[in-house]
């Protein structure tokens, strides 16, 4: 799941696909992804993993890194 999310984020949202990001990179607070990108990410997660994550969970506090995303996805 981590690798899949990493690939999707790198391909879809990064200005420069060569930017080094990993499972601990702060993506929202670090300015890599914004609300518009998070809408696409929410749809992607629903499509790929069958989990619908409510918007209040998709925040810089709880959804900032890929590791946190995986934890949240597993909760739902």
């Amino acid at each position, binding site marked *: 799941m981590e690798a899949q999310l990493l690939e999707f984020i790198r391909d879809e949202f990064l200005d420069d696909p060569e930017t080094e990001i990993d499972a601990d990179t702060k993506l929202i607070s670090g300015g890599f992804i914004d609300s*518009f990108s998070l*809408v696409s990410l929410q749809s992607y997660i629903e499509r790929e993993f069958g989990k619908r994550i409510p918007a209040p969970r998709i925040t810089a506090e709880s959804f900032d890194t890929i590791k946190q995303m995986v934890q949240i996805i597993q909760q739902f």
Partner: protein
Amino acid sequence: MISFEFFAILGLSLVLYWLLPAQRARNLLLSAASLLFIWLLDHQSLVVVLALTLFSYGMGQAIYRLKRNSWVHVLGVIGILASLIFFKYLGFLAGLFDSLYIFLEALPRFSLHHLLLPLGLSYIAFKQISYLSDIKWKLVKPGSFADFLLYNSLFTIFLAGPIERFERLNPQFQSPRIPFKKADLELGSRRIVIGLFKKLVLADWLGFFISGIWNNPSQYHPGLALLAVFGYAFQIYLDFAGYSDIAIGASRLFGLRVMENFDRPYLATNISQFWRRWHISLSDFIRDYIFFPLSRLSSNKVWLLGFVPVIAMGLCGLWHGADSRYLIWGIWHGLGLSVYQIFQQLKRRLGKRKMLKFNAFFAAIAWPLTFMFVSLGWLSFRAFGLPMARHIFFSFEGLTLTLISFLLLIFLGRWLPAFLLDIGARIRWRPAFTLYLLLICLICYSALNTEFIYAAF
């Protein structure tokens, strides 16, 4: 908020609060103090708060207990919105209907213009919509009625937010006993004094100096009018950030942590970032309960990039009041977000190499452009500033000075944001500062005293 009632209730309840041993008893005391505060301000508001709290709590219980609960959720949100529309927007709508009255003479005429907006209603309505939606999404449990009543009425954040979530406040109410910490008292009182300073010394006096220009711009040089536009940007920020400081600080005195509402918004380098830093509790609400649900309706790019931000921000504008100037302000920001997002998509499409040569240019104009965009947005927000806009932008002098100020901001942008951040980090607060600031606040309060701008929403 800066009233005898507020500080008397704050002082008295604070002493009793820390004398009580159990958090349950403390919460009941805070609820009683909060209801007393609302009652002293306006009897009608207390009735509305209690009625809405009962309604939403009942709806929350139903959503929690029923398996097929979507219709209860919809009904609950409609009920809350109906109360908001009834008190806040019906006068505005009645005005529109009045203009059609000539064609509808056979219908009975209702007089709704003098319906008063209950205090804090806009904030409670959003808190309760988030409460019902979070129960629906299984993010929170309904909690006890006493805790929900305290969540809605807590007097430290009642008048103008922050629009806290039940999910964040309720665990604090549930705590067996919030420990007494000297640091909470020190940080809380410091924060209150800083808030008073922002409001009474900076915002009110700034407002005093620029209000003449805003009221009659044609009497002044376009350069001064332009300064008054920038001045209002700082007045509204200092006024609202000052209020938020007092609200957060007063809550901290009771050991309660309330979310931050501002994070240096005028240092934002794009409009999307600005909305992550300005009135954070409202923009979070708009994002979670309007922007995301609207975005899910269609994956069409025109809808997502063109319509959703404009509709969401238009509603955000209307939340401030039933007035076209707020709607225009919201649409202005919605269009800004939309254009910024389209630009981001284009940047991604063109790829890194093609954009590289423009990077230095974009970096130089990012901050001044954002600041100018936001400042110009306040033109509509503040008394529908068409005369002001006409005076500045329909004259050669005004346009030239706007261009010069933009160039000046580009120059300042090279070091000013970093300098301000550095100064902020270097300040070492001493207890004496709190007393000095309080003294200055008291002197300024006796000379000039105005209401908080955002308390009117």
